[in-house]
């Protein structure tokens, strides 16, 4: 029943172990209590018998008591307290023994009291104390015996046992609650591991690291080693897919050439079919390459923005669209974007290229921190888009599946890269008059 839960298993184990320990404690404490009570009885008997012993005499081998113990139980038949003094010619005993007697002592010690249990008068089980005393040096020793009905101790022992059981049950409850709290505390790092493994599932480059209790280190190190292997496999597979996709581009270009020649030769239908297949394959390759890039996006990376923007601008300035516009860059030299350099290039490249294509004179790029977010804006002074056109553009660029090369693929990649790094892309009207694309990332703690 508890096989599925480590917590329940640990709590149940602790509960049983604590219960066993408390049962043993109950037995031990009851035994100690009984021993203590009996020692008190022995002490009491010795006190009670002092007047008797103080005034004891021997007359022709028969003991004579000058005075008797004061406790009334010695004077009531079967009263539970008994004494008996035996001489060589006879014995005297308490009234409580009535016409019965205590068992005859055998070799009782002379220097101390011997305590034993014995069958007493009236079918009682008694605690028997006995020793010999020599009243005068020249006289023979007399045997003194004291008896106590053990049945008189039973109620106190039962009451103690019951109260002790109640106390130990309460103690069990407290200890079980403590064990429950302890198990919860002990298992908490495992819950943290669980959450971190979930993070690792989302981001192949994430690792658990070393912020765990020492005892969990073998587990977390193994998980990290597994994550290393998984990431390496993933990267290898993705690179292979990317290489394959790149490798197909040149043969496809060659195929397109063949198609064009077939068309020139009059085989228009064949060329149409070929072109249609080539377009589909190009779209598939473009999408696969984009997906490969997005799947390899790593969280927690950062890139200093302006130098990379400068390098991208240098590329765009070589193009027909780029050579006729000016680029203005704004932002501090050290400001960063929260993604790796390659990913940042793939995100910003299409945005800059698109802005240059539509700008009249100027493209403005800014990286700033606004309201706790890192914001990249790329604006132009071109004709811009109205609200409906902006919605359509963002939708057209929304899905890699629906985009093909040159038709929203760049925007789709940029958008998916932004989202893969917890960013959000929006389109708005630029203060320059044209379109402004903004990507906002929440700043990490």
């Amino acid at each position, binding site marked *: 029943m508890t096989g599925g839960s480590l917590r329940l298993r640990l709590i149940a184990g602790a509960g049983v172990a604590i219960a066993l320990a408390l049962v043993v404690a109950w037995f031990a404490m009851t035994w100690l209590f009984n021993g203590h009570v009996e020692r008190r009885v022995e002490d009491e008997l010795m006190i009670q018998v002092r007047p008797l012993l103080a005034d004891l005499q021997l007359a022709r081998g028969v003991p004579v008591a000058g005075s008797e113990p004061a406790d009334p139980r010695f004077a009531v038949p079967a009263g539970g307290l008994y004494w008996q003094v035996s001489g060589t010619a006879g014995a005297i005993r308490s009234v409580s023994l009535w016409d019965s007697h205590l068992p005859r002592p055998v070799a009782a010690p002379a220097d101390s009291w011997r305590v034993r249990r014995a069958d007493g008068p009236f079918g009682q089980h008694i605690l028997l104390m006995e020793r010999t005393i020599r009243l005068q040096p020249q006289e023979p020793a007399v045997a003194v015996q004291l008896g106590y009905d053990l049945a008189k101790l039973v109620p106190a022992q039962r009451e103690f046992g019951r109260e002790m059981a109640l106390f130990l049950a309460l103690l069990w409850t407290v200890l079980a609650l403590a064990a429950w709290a302890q198990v919860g505390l002990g298992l908490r790092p495992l819950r943290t591991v669980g959450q971190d493994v979930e993070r690792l599932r989302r981001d192949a480059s994430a690792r658990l690291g070393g912020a765990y209790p020492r005892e969990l280190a073998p587990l977390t190190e193994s998980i990290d080693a597994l994550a290393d292997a998984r990431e390496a496999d993933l990267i290898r597979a993705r690179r292979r897919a990317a290489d394959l996709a*790149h490798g197909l581009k040149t*043969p496809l270009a*060659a195929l397109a050439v063949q198609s064009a020649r077939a068309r020139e030769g009059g085989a228009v239908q064949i060329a149409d079919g070929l072109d249609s297949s080539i377009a589909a394959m190009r779209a598939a390759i473009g999408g696969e390459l984009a997906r490969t890039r997005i799947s390899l996006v790593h969280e927690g990376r950062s890139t200093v923005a302006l130098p990379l923007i400068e390098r991208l601008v240098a590329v765009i300035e070589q193009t027909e669209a780029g050579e006729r516009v000016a680029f203005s860059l704004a932002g501090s030299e050290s400001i960063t974007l929260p993604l790796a350099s*390659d990913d940042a290039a793939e995100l910003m490249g299409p945005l800059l290229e698109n802005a240059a294509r539509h700008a009249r*004179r100027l493209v403005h790029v800014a990286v700033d921190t606004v309201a706790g977010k890192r914001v990249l804006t790329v604006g132009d002074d071109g004709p811009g888009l109205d609200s409906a056109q902006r919605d359509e553009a963002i939708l057209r660029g929304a899905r890699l599946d629906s985009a093909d090369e040159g038709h929203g693929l760049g925007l789709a990649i940029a958008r998916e890269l932004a989202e893969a790094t917890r960013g959000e892309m929006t389109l708005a009207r630029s203060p320059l008059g044209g379109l402004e694309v903004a990507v906002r990332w929440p700043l990490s703690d």
Partner: protein
Amino acid sequence: MRALVVEDDPVVASELIRGMTAAGFVVDLASDGQQAWFNGDVEDYDVAVVDLGLPRLDGLSVVKRWREAGRGFPVLILSARGEWTDKVAGIEAGADDYMAKPWAMEELVARVRGLIRRAAGRSSPTLEVGGLRIDTHRMTATLDGALVKLSPLEYRLLDYLAHHAGRAVPATELSDHLYGDADAENANAIEALIARLRRKLGAETIQTRRGFGYTLAVNAT
């Protein structure tokens, strides 16, 4: 016009040769990197179209070797790898333009012609203002001997200021030169260009004379 096509795929190469020949180019073909490097080093070409994935020596290395050897003809990279990092690497290796496969022949020819037009020579070969040297033949600038990468607009603005060194050139005059009109809306673009030139050449190189315009400092270093 002589062009060098560097491409190892025979079908793609034949199409490039066919398209460029039809556009009036005399085309040589190199089908591996070593041959391309050798051809570019010993022959005078007006332009080269270079694939990156080549046998024996990759395309980026070919372009770098040409540039190191002082071969300045324009280079257009035509590659299956269309990522931005590849484009940046290509331009930083010394290429002048980058196209990803698949390509449209008309666009390729137009861009090749654009490159040749930009690289065309001018009457005055060099202008020197302090440590700044402008090569009007190659349309490049060096500052204290180090090449400064300039966009065509930046180059044209710098070239204009250099031709009028020491004089304050109004923004409207620059706008007229760069865009063919003195539209006030171009002021932001001019300011952006000046800002980028200052970043590349040093803040003191271009001074603003409030109310007059921009001056290329004669003692620029």
